[in-house]
C-alpha cells in the first residue's frame, strides 16, 4: 500500500498492513503456494541439505576470494567486448547509467526485473532526464503503473488484486479491460511488444556472473529479460559485486537451488547466459553492452565474521515465503527495497547507519524459519540478534528497556535474589489475578493481554517443592538398566574425544 511509506516505523507500517484484509489474504495465499511448491520440489529432488551445503560452500568460497573472481570476471567480460564499470555508491551507478543513456540519446529504456535498480531508484532518475523507463516484468509493470515499489522479491505485485490491476491497465489502454487475467496479460503483451521494438536501451539485473568466461546469467519465466537482452541496440546490466560464481559447472548448483527455492520450479522457463554483445555477424543481440558492478554497501560485510555470509544470498525469496511475520504484514511494512527476513538484515547492513533501521530487526520472533528455508543456509535469525546487539553497542538503546535488562541481570545473576522476586510476585499478583489468570491491560502487559490471558503464579515454585519431592523419590528408586548405563558412559567418552559440538 502506498500509504505504508508515509508511516515512519515498522510498527506503524505493520499496523496498516494488519488492518488491510485483502493484503493479508493475498500475501498468505501466495507465500503458501510458493513455500508448498518449494517443499515439494526440494523433496522430489532429494538430498536437499547436501545441495544447500554445496551451494553454501560455493558462495563462501567465491566471497572469500572475491577480489580474484571479480577481477577475473571484469577482465573476461571486457575481453568479450563488454564495457565494464565500477560504482562504489548508488550515486556513481546512477551517474554512469544516465550518462550512457544520454550518450545514446535514448528516449526509452525497457527493463527486466532488477533489485539493484530498485536500490538506486533508477527509474525515477531516468525519468528526471526525460528518458522513459518501462518495467517489462508483468508484476513490475503493474506496480510501476501504480507508482509503488515491489513488496516481494519474486512476486512484486503480490499485494494487488485483479480488479486493481484491471483499473490500472484500463487507464493505460484508454478502454475498459475486463478483470480477467488472460485479457490483462494479453494487453500487456501487445503494449510492451511495441515498447521492446522501439526502445533504445535494454536494462537488466544479473542473477549470476560467471568469472571464468565473463558471462552473465538471467533466470526468468516471462521472456522479458530475453527481450531486453535481444532486441534493443544497447544493453546495460547492473549487478551487485557479489553476484559472482566461478564457473558454468557451479551454475548447475545455483540452477538447482534458485528456481526450486523461489517458485518450486525445476528450472525457470528461461535461463540465459549472455557472453558479450552480439558477434559481428549476428543479426540480433545488442551492439553495445555495459555492465555496471555496484558496491553500494555490500563490501561493508566483507571481513565481518557476523555478516559476511549475507553476501551469499541468491535472492530467491524463500525466506519471505517461510516467514510468519512477512505473512502477516507484507513487504511494504519493512520500508526498504528488500523485505522479509533478508530485508530486515540486508537493509541495515547495506546502510552504515544501523540505528536508523534498527526497528526492522525487532520485527522478528527469531523462529528460524528463514534459515531453514534458505538454499545457502544464511543464519538470518542469528544476524538479527547481532544487529540488535550492535544497535545497543552504538548507544542507540531504548532507555526503559535497558533499565529493565539491568534489572533482569541483577535478579537472574543470583538465585537468592531470583527466588525473592518470585515470592514478591506471588504477593503482588493477588491484586490482579481473577479466575486463575491476569487480564490487566496496563504497562508491559497491555500488548500481551490484548490477545491473551496471563497465567498466575502457583503457590509453590518448583524449587519450593524440590526438597519434599527428592526425598519421596529417593525411596523406591529403580535400578538403572546396565545397558542404559553403559550407553550413557559411552556417550560421555565419545563427546570428550570429539572436537565438535556434540549432538543436536
Amino acid at each position: 500500500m502506498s500509504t505504508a511509506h508515509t508511516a515512519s516505523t515498522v510498527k506503524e507500517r505493520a499496523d496498516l498492513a494488519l488492518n488491510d484484509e485483502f493484503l493479508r489474504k493475498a500475501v498468505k495465499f501466495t507465500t503458501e503456494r510458493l513455500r508448498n511448491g518449494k517443499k515439494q520440489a526440494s523433496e522430489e529432488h532429494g538430498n536437499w541439505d547436501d545441495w544447500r551445503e554445496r551451494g553454501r560452500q560455493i558462495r563462501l568460497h567465491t566471497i572469500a576470494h572475491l577480489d580474484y573472481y571479480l577481477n577475473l570476471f571484469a577482465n573476461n567480460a571486457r575481453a568479450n567486448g563488454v564495457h565494464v564499470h565500477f560504482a562504489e555508491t548508488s550515486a556513481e551507478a546512477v551517474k554512469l547509467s544516465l550518462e550512457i543513456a544520454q550518450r545514446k540519446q535514448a528516449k526509452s529504456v525497457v527493463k527486466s526485473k532488477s533489485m539493484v535498480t530498485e536500490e538506486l531508484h533508477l527509474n525515477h532518475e531516468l525519468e528526471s532526464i526525460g528518458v522513459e523507463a518501462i518495467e517489462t516484468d508483468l508484476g513490475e509493470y503493474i506496480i510501476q503503473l501504480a507508482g509503488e515499489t515491489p513488496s516481494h522479491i519474486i512476486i512484486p505485485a503480490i499485494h494487488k488484486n485483479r480488479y486493481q490491476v484491471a483499473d490500472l491497465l484500463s487507464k493505460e489502454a484508454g478502454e475498459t479491460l475486463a478483470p480477467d487475467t488472460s485479457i490483462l496479460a494479453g494487453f500487456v503483451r501487445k503494449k510492451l511488444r511495441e515498447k521492446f521494438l522501439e526502445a533504445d536501451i535494454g536494462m537488466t539485473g544479473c542473477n549470476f556472473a560467471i568469472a571464468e568466461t565473463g558471462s552473465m546469467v538471467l533466470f526468468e519465466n516471462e521472456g522479458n529479460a530475453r527481450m531486453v537482452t535481444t532486441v534493443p541496440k544497447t544493453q546495460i546490466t547492473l549487478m551487485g559485486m557479489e553476484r559472482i560464481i566461478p564457473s558454468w559447472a557451479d551454475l548447475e548448483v545455483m540452477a538447482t537451488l534458485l528456481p526450486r527455492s523461489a517458485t518450486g520450479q525445476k528450472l525457470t522457463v528461461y535461463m540465459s547466459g549472455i557472453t558479450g554483445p552480439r558477434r559481428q555477424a549476428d543479426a540480433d543481440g545488442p551492439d553495445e553492452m555495459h555492465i555496471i558492478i555496484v558496491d553500494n554497501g555490500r563490501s561493508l560485510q566483507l571481513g565481518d565474521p557476523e555478516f559476511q555470509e549475507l553476501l551469499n544470498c541468491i535472492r530467491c525469496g524463500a525466506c519471505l515465503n517461510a516467514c510468519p511475520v512477512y505473512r502477516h504484514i507484507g513487504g511494504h511494512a519493512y520500508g526498504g527495497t528488500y523485505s522479509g527476513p533478508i530485508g530486515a538484515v540486508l537493509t541495515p547492513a547495506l546502510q552504515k547507519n544501523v540505528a536508523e533501521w534498527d526497528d526492522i530487526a525487532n520485527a522478528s520472533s527469531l523462529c528460524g524459519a528463514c534459515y531453514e528455508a534458505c538454499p545457502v543456509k544464511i543464519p538470518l535469525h542469528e544476524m538479527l540478534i547481532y544487529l540488535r546487539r550492535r544497535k545497543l553497542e552504538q548507544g542507540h538503546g531504548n532507555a526503559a528497556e535497558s533499565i529493565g535488562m539491568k534489572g533482569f541481570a541483577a535478579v537472574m545473576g543470583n538465585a537468592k535474589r531470583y527466588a525473592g522476586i518470585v515470592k514478591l510476585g506471588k504477593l503482588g499478583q493477588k491484586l490482579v489475578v481473577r479466575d486463575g489468570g491476569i487480564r490487566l491491560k496496563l504497562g508491559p502487559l497491555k500488548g500481551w493481554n490484548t490477545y491473551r490471558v496471563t497465567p498466575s503464579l502457583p503457590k509453590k515454585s518448583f524449587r519450593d517443592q524440590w526438597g519434599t519431592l527428592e526425598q519421596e523419590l529417593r525411596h523406591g528408586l529403580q535400578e538403572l538398566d546396565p545397558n542404559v548405563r553403559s550407553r550413557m558412559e559411552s556417550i560421555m567418552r565419545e563427546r570428550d574425544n570429539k572436537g565438535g559440538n556434540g549432538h543436536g
Partner: protein
Amino acid sequence: MKVSLFITCLSDTIYPRVGEAMVRLLAKYGIQLHFPSVQTCCGQPAFNSGYWKEARESAKTILDAFEDSDFVISPSGSCTGMIHHYPKLYETDSVMRERAIKLQRKSYEFTQFLVQVLGVKDIGAVFPHKVTYHPSCHGSRLLGIKEEPMELMRHVKGLELVPLPFAEDCCGFGGTFAVKMADISGAMVTEKVDHVLETEAEVLVGLDLACLMNIAGNLHYRNQPVKVMHLAELLYEGVKQA
C-alpha cells in the same frame, strides 16, 4: 554419573508440575535427577534483545550450576537451544567459552534424552484423547527435535494424534517480540489458535512452555476449552492412568 535438571525459569515459577512430571518419569528408569539450586534463567530474553552483558550475568548461574554434571536435562528446546549460543556469547573469553562448549555437549531437551540416551520409545502410558502437537521453532529447527516426540506419542495407548495445519509456523511468542511488536505477535498467535481449533483436538501438546503459555493465553482469552500440556505432563498423566 550425575544427571541434572535444568528446570528453566518458566517451569520453576509458573509450571512446576512440568518439572515434577519429568522428575517422576525419569525416576521410573532409575535416573535420580539432581537439582542445583544456584540456577536461574538461561539468559535468552536479554541475549535475543541484544543485551549480551546482562545475558552473561544470567548464563553464568547455569554454567556454575552444571559444572560437574554429566547430563543436563531441560523441559525446553528453546532454553537448551540458548545453551548452544553460549560459546558465541563468550566468544572473547576463552575460559568461559571452554566451559560453555562443555555444557553444550552435555545438554539435552527432555524428549531427546528420553529417546536418544535412554532409548525409550514406549513409556507405558494410556491417554485416550484427541491430541494435536505444536513443534516449537527452536527445538525443531535449532536442535532438530522432530522424531523424538512423535515416537513417544505413537506408543501412547489410545492417543489419537491429529496433525496441526501449518504446525511448523511460529506461534508468535518470540520473547520481547510479543511485547515490542504486540500486534504482529497477536496476529500470529490468533492464527495458530485458529489452526488448533480446526483440528478439534481436546489437547494441544508441545515441548516449550513459553510457546504453550502463549497459545494457552490466547485460548483462555477466547474462552476455548482446549487443554494445553507439556508432553512430559501428558506422558506422566498417561503413566498414572495405565
